[in-house]
Structure formats: structure tokens, C-alpha cells
């Protein structure tokens, strides 16, 4: 087994799904967490960009290789340890759901986290809560249900990157909407609990360091 070293910020953000995949696989990894304050200095230690290939985090280092881009890394870990889907078509379905969950979540970062103008921020929040998020959740509920009734996982009959991505991201979506936002989506709500109850994931959730994502509101 190679020694894996994941470097990301102190947040859950774009790194947590990778940590969760390692946890689900029962694979040890070095979980390096960098504060926003320390990140510029860390970049300076690598002027040739041999590690921080695209000047961003996360990166995954192992056996002399470096991978960047959070979903490329996550998919690598998923493929290595059996969380990616079993056939090309299953993998494609997993990828589709991962992309859709990302689409639902990433505007939150652009439009809320980075938006300075309070009025624009509020207006966007309203659109998000009342239109965008329900649209995404409706589509995801439908896809989940189409997989044998929806009482298992998104794709095939075991947990994949898609389920883990959804369970992780939905916390942030819920935080920015309301705690009962999944009440209209019973299969999705049950899926989130199901993922979090998987023994290795439950163990990770219990022991992971505190991540201050939820302070950025």
C-alpha cells in the first residue's frame, strides 16, 4: 500500500469527500490541513510548482506522484478502492451524480461566500432556497428512486463516490437552507443517514478534526 498524503485547507470544502473515501476504504492517509493564513507561505516553498501543480489545494502525493483537482483525486481513490461503480456505465452514472451535486453546491461558494454586496447575497439566497435547490433535490430524488426503489444507493447496490459526495455536501446545502430541507425528499434523507451510519464512515465522522466551514455565512 503506498503512503498517501493529502494536503488541503482546514475546511471540509473540496477535500472532505477524499477523506471520506479513504475512510470508507479503511486506507490510512496523512491528513495535512492548512489554514488560509498559512497557505501563501506554503505556496512559496514550491516555486517550481512541483507539488502545487495548479497553485491550488487539494493535492494528493504518493509514490513520487502528485495529483491535483479535488474530483480527479477523489475519483482516483474511488477507482482504486472500489467506490466508483463496477462497469463504465455505472461509473458514468456515479460521475453524473457527482457533477450534479457539485453544480448544486458550487454556486453557494461563488454567490454567497465571495459576494460582498449584502442585497445581492440575500437575493441569491432566496433564489437558491426557493428554486435552485428544490430543482436539484427533485432530480436527485428521482434518480435515486429509479435505482431499485431508492432504498439503497444511487448506483448499483453498494455505496459509491456519488452517495458519499451527496451526504457530505448536503450538510452545507442544509446549513444554507434550513434543517428540514430534505423533508420533501424522503429517499435522499434516508440515504444521507444510511451513508453516515456505515461503520467506517461513522467512525471517521466521530473522530475527524473540527472544520470551520460553517462559520462562513
Amino acid at each position, binding site marked *: 500500500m503506498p503512503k498517501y498524503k493529502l494536503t488541503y485547507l482546514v475546511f471540509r470544502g473540496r477535500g472532505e469527500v477524499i477523506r471520506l473515501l479513504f475512510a470508507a476504504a479503511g486506507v490510512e492517509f496523512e491528513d495535512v490541513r492548512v489554514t488560509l493564513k498559512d497557505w501563501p507561505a506554503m505556496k512559496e516553498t514550491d516555486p517550481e510548482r512541483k507539488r502545487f*501543480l495548479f497553485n491550488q489545494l487539494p493535492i494528493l502525493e504518493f509514490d513520487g506522484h502528485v495529483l*491535483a*483537482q479535488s474530483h480527479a*483525486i477523489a475519483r482516483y481513490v474511488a477507482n482504486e478502492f472500489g467506490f466508483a461503480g463496477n462497469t*463504465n*456505465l455505472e461509473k*458514468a452514472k456515479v460521475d453524473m451524480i457527482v*457533477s450534479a451535486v457539485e*453544480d448544486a453546491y458550487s454556486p453557494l461558494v461563488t454567490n454567497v461566500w465571495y459576494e460582498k454586496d449584502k442585497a445581492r447575497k440575500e437575493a441569491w439566497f432566496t433564489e437558491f432556497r426557493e428554486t435552485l435547490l428544490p430543482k436539484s433535490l427533485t432530480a436527485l430524488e428521482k434518480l435515486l428512486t429509479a435505482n431499485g426503489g431508492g432504498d439503497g444507493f444511487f448506483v448499483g447496490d453498494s455505496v459509491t463516490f456519488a452517495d458519499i459526495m451527496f451526504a457530505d455536501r448536503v450538510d452545507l446545502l442544509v446549513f444554507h437552507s434550513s434543517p428540514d430541507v430534505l423533508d420533501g425528499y424522503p429517499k435522499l434523507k434516508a440515504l444521507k443517514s444510511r451513508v453516515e451510519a456505515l461503520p467506517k464512515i461513522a467512525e471517521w465522522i466521530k473522530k475527524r478534526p473540527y472544520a470551520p466551514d460553517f462559520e462562513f455565512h
Partner: protein
Amino acid sequence: MPQYRLMYFNIRARAETSRMIFAAAGVEYEDVRVAREQWPAEKASGKYPFGQMPCLEIDGKFTLAQSRAIGRYLANEYGLAGKDNLEKAKVDMVIYVCEDIYVGVRNIFFEKDETKKAEMKADFVVKADSILAALEKLLIANNGGNGYLVGDSLTWADLEFFVRMEYAPFFNAAILDQYPKLKALAERVSSVPEIAAWLKKRPKTDF
């Protein structure tokens, strides 16, 4: 061979890489281009999983959504994805980096305000330089950079890169002059016979 229908608007944008994969693989498909006026009715039909395009309909039985999921599926099916998990991850990395190029260009293209547009272009050139410098390095690290971005044969990373750099005139037409290996790669991609044939016969679009 499955029956494929690729559904999108009559633009390159988020479907062109998949069209290029089909071309490079020599695989037949129906290249459906939905007119803007037709789209509301199409969307309301409920056959698009997320109410968006592109979508890939496979054998009339399953509709796959999300452009990268589609591209990766086709690349995996037809040997253009990289030969092992590590190569596939490096290919993916390039795909995501190219997304940053696409989004930057798309935002510039659709900006109506001329002053804002000029500002966005100036900002983006700096960002594009940073991305291209990193990609040039990656290419050179792959056995000197006279082949492809990952491994020793064409992958959809090379196709995606080519498709995104077709947008260079929107921010700096000559930008690849500073990145000789990337420039040669783009030319190499366009000279692959199946790609050259596609570039010649495809509909001409603004974006």
C-alpha cells in the same frame, strides 16, 4: 455498437469534446442540435435528468447527463481515457483545469457591458497564462512533451485542451505562442486524420 444520440444546442461549448471523442474513435452517433426556440418544450418533456444539455441517450434506454460524465464514459468505452487509474486521474486533472479556461471564456463571451468585458478579458489573460504555464510543464514532464498530455497516446485530455484553446481569440489569439509544446500539441491533435475530417465537416458556430 450501441445507438447514441448526443443532444445539445448548435454550439461547441459543452458538447464539442464528446463530438471529438466520437470522431477520434470512429464511432457513429446522432449529433442532435436543438434550436433555442425548441428547448423549452424539450426541457418540459422530462427526458433530461437535470433539465439541461448535453445529454447522451444510449440505445434509447438510458439518458446520461453532465458533459464530463458523458465525455469520460465515451473515452472509457473507446480507449481514450488513459490506460490505468493513475493515467485516468492525470487525464481528469487536465479536464478540470480546462474547465477553468472554458468558464472564463464563456463569462467573457456572454458579457454585454463592454467596459466590464474588457476588464474580464484582462483578468482572464493572467489566469489563462498561469494555467497554460502549468499545462506546458505537465506536457514536458511527459517524456519531453512531443507526444500527448498523458501517457503515450491521444486521450480526451488532449481533445478537451484543443477544444478549449479554439476559444483563444476571445482573450488572446496568440497566447499559445508562449507555450511551444502546447502549441505543437494543438496542431498535432488537429492533424489526426479523423479529427481533421471532423473539423472540416462540422457545423460552423460562434461559440
